[in-house]
């Protein structure tokens, strides 16, 4: 009998060959929060209290979490014969309340949250937002720690469970919880003269908005370029705030762009073409890229090929949730 067995809340669950811990537990009726199923969002975090978890199930986790036995259940396929005892990540969750939900544009919500205790994070990191029933999705933080409230920018996705709930039903005072922070897309003070390049589409602006303000407040002196792309002008938001910020900091360049419907203030064209035109030689820059995966991954490759060092390339891909083929429930 060389199946993998997982013990959760004093009951053993066998896994099928090649099945992940997450899939096996969900299949047998155990509720585990999850979203991307690809090791990117960290909402399926679990803790192993005994038994071995492959290293691959810990990629991207902070050392403090690793040493406590945490792993990502969606990419955890223990070797045959393993007996693993696991628990959920409730200990890492911070109770929070919705403070406000407002529109930043027709398609983007600004969601502010207050936590019972201050969350220790860097602007640009992301958290998992958990609804009371366990629905989990990841969102980047647009706020700065000193601001107290956590700010998320949430794109309305047609039929989206979390974004739909936030835009239609969530009310100030509703209880949620937050897990995290995670991610390494944030500003680290130092090398103050180094040029910074920030680029993202849609709500990929959220972490960039935090990072750019963090860099400016930290005293960054090198030029900062922020490219925000959208399909149409309606997809841009916070433009006024960013223009105002640019007028106060001469080194900060804000470049909104759209694929169609450009104007005097908004460039028209593909984001990578605009970046190349404005920053033809980005070697030596530090870059932050956030948003949909196709854009982020292709920009990252282009910037690497044009001379940016991998250690200066910080990217967060907003992977969407992927439902299990046979699942149809809320999680």
């Amino acid at each position, binding site marked *: 009998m060389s199946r993998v067995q997982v013990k959760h809340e004093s009951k053993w669950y066998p896994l099928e060959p090649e099945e992940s811990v997450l899939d096996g537990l969900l299949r047998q009726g155990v509720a585990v929060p999850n979203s991307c199923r690809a090791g990117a969002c960290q909402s399926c975090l679990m803790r192993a209290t005994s038994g071995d978890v492959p290293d691959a199930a810990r990629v991207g986790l902070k050392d403090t979490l690793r040493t406590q036995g945490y792993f990502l259940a969606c990419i955890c396929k223990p070797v045959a014969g393993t007996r693993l005892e696991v628990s959920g990540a409730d200990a890492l969750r911070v109770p929070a309340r919705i403070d406000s939900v407002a529109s930043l544009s027709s398609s983007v919500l600004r969601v502010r949250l207050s936590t019972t205790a201050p969350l220790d994070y860097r602007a640009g990191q992301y958290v998992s937002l958990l609804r009371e029933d366990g629905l989990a999705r990841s969102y980047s933080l647009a706020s700065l720690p000193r601001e107290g409230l956590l700010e998320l920018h949430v794109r309305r996705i047609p039929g989206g469970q979390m974004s739909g709930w936030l835009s239609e039903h969530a009310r100030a005072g509703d209880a949620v919880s937050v897990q995290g922070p995670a991610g390494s897309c944030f500003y680290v003070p130092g090398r103050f003269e180094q040029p910074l390049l920030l680029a993202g589409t849609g709500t990929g602006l959220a972490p960039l908005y935090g990072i750019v303000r963090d860099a400016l407040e930290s005293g960054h002196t090198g030029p900062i370029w922020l490219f925000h792309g959208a399909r149409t002008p309606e997809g841009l938001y916070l433009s006024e705030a960013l223009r105002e910020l640019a007028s106060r900091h001469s080194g900060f360049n804000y470049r909104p762009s759209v694929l169609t419907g450009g104007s005097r203030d908004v460039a028209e064209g593909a984001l990578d073409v605009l970046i190349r035109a404005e920053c033809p030689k980005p070697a030596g820059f530090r870059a932050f890229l956030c948003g949909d995966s196709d854009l982020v*991954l292709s920009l*990252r*490759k282009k910037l*690497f*090929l044009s*001379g940016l060092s*991998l250690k200066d390339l910080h990217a967060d891909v907003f992977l969407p949730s992927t439902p299990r083929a046979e699942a149809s429930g809320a999680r």
Partner: protein
Amino acid sequence: MSTAAQQKSVYEQIGGEPAMAAAVEVFYRKVLSDERISHFFEDVDMERQAAKQKAFLTMVTGGPSSYSGKDMRAGHAHLVKRGLNDVHFDAVVEHLRSTLEELGVAAPLVAQVLAIAGGARADVLNR
């Protein structure tokens, strides 16, 4: 052990880990921008791939590496199915040569590294 300990590996002579970290970026950039071979890297995770390139460079320069012939076979089998052949292998070796030369590695050391890399041909091409 004694002979190996007395004679420094190319890895150490070049400058060890920091030199490898510099070399891998230059090398990987060349490999990715070569259209003869870049399509083999279309859908890979860049960071993980760079880590593999580094392990490969470390191995061919005689540094501390866990890379083995078996890993090389398993790691390239799917690429061989997609048509990986001597032309591609030669292209990678060529980039390895120019990378080391650009970084100022002495000619005899470059020759040693290329000889070791050439020895991996059978494993990489699963022959």
